[in-house]
């Protein structure tokens, strides 16, 4: 009788062992190779993040072709506003130093200027802000998409 029980116990443990071995083999395939090197994550994800495309090139990249605009811009009140704020990211226009497309044109200058200069209550008072509709009317002009540029040069606005 004792021998009979030993057999059953042996079988159970054999089965358990087989399950463990199968799980360990499955684990080799399921866990990414670099997982756990620096922490509980896949280390090879780091270079994947770092390798993503840089889409904004900064003012210096714009100046490579538009040096005149940069000189004009650097001497004015908008010097702190990067080119790519009002225009678009470099990658929309240039790839590997070659022009690929025109920069998208700003549809409504009034709205663009208003992003910074509209006289919102939440906007701090030491910043130049204006009631655009009233200002345009006071100047005897009609409100239109490009109206700001009739008087103001966005690259070098009068103070």
């Amino acid at each position, binding site marked *: 009788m004792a021998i009979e029980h030993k057999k059953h116990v042996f079988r159970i443990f054999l089965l358990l062992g087989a399950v463990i071995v199968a799980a360990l083999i499955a684990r080799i395939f399921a866990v*990414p190779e670099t997982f756990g*090197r620096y922490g509980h994550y896949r280390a090879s*994800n780091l270079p994947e993040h770092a390798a993503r495309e*840089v889409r904004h090139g900064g003012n210096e990249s714009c100046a490579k072709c538009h040096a005149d605009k940069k000189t004009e811009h650097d001497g004015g009140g908008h010097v702190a506003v990067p080119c790519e704020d009002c225009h678009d990211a470099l990658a929309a226009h240039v790839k590997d130093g070659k022009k690929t497309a025109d920069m998208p044109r700003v549809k409504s200058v009034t709205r663009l200027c208003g992003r910074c200069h509209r006289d919102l209550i939440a906007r*701090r008072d030491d910043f130049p802000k204006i009631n655009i509709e009233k200002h345009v009317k006071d100047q005897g002009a009609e409100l239109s998409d490009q109206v700001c540029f009739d008087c103001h040069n966005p690259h070098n606005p009068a103070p």
Partner: protein
Amino acid sequence: MDNVSRREFIRKAALASGGCAVFLLLGPGGKGNAAQPGAEGGSPLGDYDWEQHQYAYLIDTVKCIGCGMCVKACKAENNVPDGFFRTWIERYEISEDGEAEVDSPNGGLDGFEENVSHVKIAKAFFVPKMCNHCAASPCVQVCPVGASYRTKDGVVLVDQEHCVGCGYCVQACPYGSRFIPHDENTPYARTAHKCTLCYHRITKGLKPACVAACPVGARQLADMKDQFDPVRKRIITERVAVLQPELLTEPSCYYSALDKEVR
């Protein structure tokens, strides 16, 4: 079966399962340290040494004019899908009796056009929000598959190849910094998306797109391991606050002049 053999059985079973547990615990250790090209022991990012940096972020709510250029730049730099935001601007308008009106039309992507509140406003201001890159990040703690992690230089990232899109991290983040786009045209749809602190830029010595885009210097990146960094100096010498400090998430985003209404 008599009592002795039953006891014997339990004893042996316990021994065997203990042995299995030891085996399983030792198993992954050996594998995790397996030889890999390039990265063994050093920095995983080539010339960039992540041991030399510890990033923090300073948001100056007094300087912010709510233009939303940071939101626009973030979207362009990171192809953020429509309707979702890795960073966004909130506008607070607080009446004299302390009632706060908060809005963020399209995350501030197109700027702010009109005042919201018509009651007498006592104070009003803009507050940029983003991932706080917490040192004790709840989002990392809850990830069941090890797809959320914090780098040694202090950036919380998602391994979107392995994220299963369960959404635990989205619920765990007290700052609402994560989202899961379900539109199949979005790259890595149905996985968690979030601010990477422009890891592809800062590891090349560039500023994050939002910092580079800010025309008033309201958003700044600090390197806490660079003792000559002026932004680090501001963080350690000036009075700064973090969002929801009671949650003990240890945020890396510091706010200057944070109002009590801001959470």
